[in-house]
């Protein structure tokens, strides 16, 4: 700690550190174009030239959303590009990317809870999501993660993911039910 009065624990982001280590290459959206070919492979173009074929977009912070960064990986899982602010892409690229992301992060949002049968072991959830009605079993309390007190991430016994975006936005009954689980 260089400044004793500063108790926050930011990354050591002083100028020297930035120069030596933190030289992260983040690409602005206007330099990038994304499209999909007939083989459903994603193509990535930087500044109108370098082309990467069959890339896989992943979010750097899929849960916290701490930064809106998308990492494109090639077929060997090596990063080829780190993209900033994907919303700034041209409309066509954005559409392709959004569709691909929707596929790779299938996390239905729970809109209503019909019932949660809990016996302090596994719990059976019966819910309505933005993708439709679903019943699933949550094996363990640790699969119910509460973030910031209001957002809940769920993982069921098979590895399916669900999300409650904001407990406060749920109806009373749903809220009462989920309250017992968290």
């Amino acid at each position, binding site marked *: 700690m260089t400044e004793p009065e500063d108790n926050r624990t930011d990354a050591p982001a002083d100028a020297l550190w930035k120069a030596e280590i933190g030289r992260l290459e983040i690409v602005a959206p206007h330099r990038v174009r994304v499209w999909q070919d007939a083989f459903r492979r994603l193509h990535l173009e930087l500044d109108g030239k370098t082309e990467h074929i069959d890339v896989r977009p992943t979010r750097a912070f899929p849960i916290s959303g701490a930064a809106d960064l998308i990492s494109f990986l090639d077929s060997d899982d090596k990063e080829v590009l780190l993209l900033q602010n994907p919303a700034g892409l041209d409309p066509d690229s954005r559409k392709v990317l959004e569709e691909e992301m929707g596929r790779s992060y*299938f996390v239905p949002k729970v809109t209503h809870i019909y019932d949660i049968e809990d016996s302090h072991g596994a719990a059976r959830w019966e819910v309505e999501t933005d993708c*439709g009605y679903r019943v699933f079993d949550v*094996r363990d309390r640790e699969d119910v993660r509460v973030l910031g007190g209001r957002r809940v991430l769920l993982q069921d*016994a098979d590895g399916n993911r669900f999300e409650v975006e904001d407990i406060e936005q749920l109806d009373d009954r749903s809220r009462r039910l989920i309250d017992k689980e968290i």
Partner: protein
Amino acid sequence: MQNRVHFTPSLEGENSPPWKFQYQTMRRLGRPGRAGVMRGGEAMNEALRQEIERLVDSDVQAALPEAVEAEIRALVGSDEQCLITLYADITPGGAYGDRWFVATDRRVLTVADDDGQVHVEVQVPWTQVRRLRLRDFLGSGSLEALTDDRAVELVRFSRTEAPTMARAYHILRRLASEDDTKAAKGRRDGSGGHQRALRCPNCGRALPRWSEVCTFCMQRGKLFVRLLSYLEPYKALAITGFGLTLVFSVLNLLPAYVSKYLVDEVLLMRYWPGLSLVLLLLLGIYVTRAVVGLARGYMLEWLGARVVFDMRVQVYDHLQMLSLGFFGRKQTGQVMSRVTNDIWRLQYFIAEGFQEILINILTVLIIAVILFTQNARLAALTLLPIPLISLSTYIFSRLIHTVYHKVWRRWASINAVLADAIPGIRVVKSFAQEERESRRLRERSQSLFDQEIRAVRLWTTFFPAVNLMTAFGSLVVFGYGGYQVLTYAMSLGTLVMFTQLMWQFYWPIQMLGMMTHRVQHALTSAERVFEVLDNPPEIPVPPDSIKLSRVDGRLEFRSVTFSYEPGKPVLTDISFLAEPGDVIGLVGPSGAGKSTLVHLVSRFYEVEDGQILLDGHDIRDISLRFLREQIGLVLQEPFLFHGTVSENIAYGFPDADPEDIIAAAKAANAHDFIVNLPHGYDTLVGERGQLLSGGERQRVSIARAILKNPRILVLDEATSSVDTETEMLIQQALDRLVSNRTTFAIAHRLSTLRKATKIIVLEHGRILEMGTHNELLDGDGLYSRLCKLQAELSKVRAW
């Protein structure tokens, strides 16, 4: 879901579990084919046909609803044979919906069933399919067909269907005319490793991760009975205690009876000698009651403490037997909380709660009998508030149970923070995160406090309410009883007795109300304790397990595959042979599976596929205890127990001769520093050995391994956390240790492997290269690259 028609399974019994409904045996569309299933003019090879048959017989195939089947019938030719049918649950648009994927011998197709609207969504003839591709995403997956000019998404499915899809996939790939070897390999890349989560055979719900017991199917009554079964060994004492309790309850009620006599026969009759008789009687009752109460209290307290003692020992013994998997899944704090808090709460219940319940129930019953024999109508009036009290007690107990469960969970989470932060205090301090850790604890304490307040609020509302109800009851008794006395329908003494008994009657009812939460609490704890006990011990020991008379240490891996989580193989197809005297160096990037590989040798986990052989015997056939006795483990972070240096060296051999301990310490290059410690071999190492330096701890643990004299030695980065000089000392010690044994050495620093007779380079759980140092160096593979890199590094930095 509702519109799905389920065919009666022909192969499985009627009593197959309900969750299996969607995976039931397939109904074939065409005639069941014999050997000659044709595709593209060539006869399908026998192996593939058999595999399809097996798939059909397994629970992978989905039964088609009638409408879907009709739709397919309309499309396909009469001689076309349906091979595989699968259910998928996500629409192309990304919503939940029913999809049926069908592979015939001519094409693959997907039929959509959107609330009865059945139509064929996609179809691709096999002649066009070049390749199939199964894609794995977070929370979902998809199956694609690649043709010459495009890729077609056949189906999307959630992870629930993913294991089924993966199993069918490798057969589908072979239908897509890929060569067999490739497909067989594809099966090993994980798709074959998919497993369903364990489910309760009774109700079909997924089992909680840490338990093999379905908590839905667990009954409270049974729980109670099981708790009582712990009294079994102390039957005589328990029965005596119960008898004394009965006597005590009766003695409690006698004074009321005596006061009736006092009023009616002595006071109203002005019968002088009666007074001294009453006084004597009461004195006798009080004295007896004190004696009985004392004996009873002692007995039951003793019983409670004893039962809990038994239980704690049992739980701890059982914990030792559980697999590492159990401990990996649970935070240490939570496990500790079960051994301490939950069992402590049970003691409270068995010792105090249980006998109070008994007394109260007995008292209520006896009073009810007395009241009804004295004056049935008045008794009935007295009982008037009982239903109300019972009902509110019931509601209250349900509410309080939930709240207490939350309280319990908050407690466990506080324990988990402590178990985290206290051992890690050095890291905490070095990052100056004390405040953050305090905050973490404060937040959880706050949350615990909030829940406790909720509980307090609940029962501070409950009791005054019940009090009010009983007060109303007393009004009725005074009113009606007073009327009866005034009209000479009842004696004054009887009224006096009634009022006395009335209070003695309401009190136990209230007590029972209060007990409910204690019972609930105890049952919750019992549930948790039993959960631990009901987890089967790690690996079932086959009764006919082999104990080898002599172990040479010849260890062979035969295409071993392993995954912690289904579908994510950590090790794939590992085969190699280690002869006694071999030093096997394991090299590879972090996460390559090096530690997992050596864990498999110790059988901390079971291989998923393949075999590990020790001297030609499958290690699963060898008694676990015996196997582990043959293995010495030296870890990167050696774990020392609280105790002296010599106790730690002799861990596993408490009776070892002091000379042997010193010899082992000398061989481990530990002797010199040990004798320099203030108390020599008797120096306490502190919790987890924190009073010793890292290198010292390491050498103590090596001495421990040397004393054990194992045939197989596992060094898991044993020297990576010490300085160069210490490393040299340790290396010398290890060199002494490895002769004549089979040694596995995991190392990041390749220099430590210079003595290795065989080096295995792992990457992504597969063997990338294997050979001696020189062979690999010439090979220009990953190993030689790493060597060059480390040589570069060593120029700059001394290690």
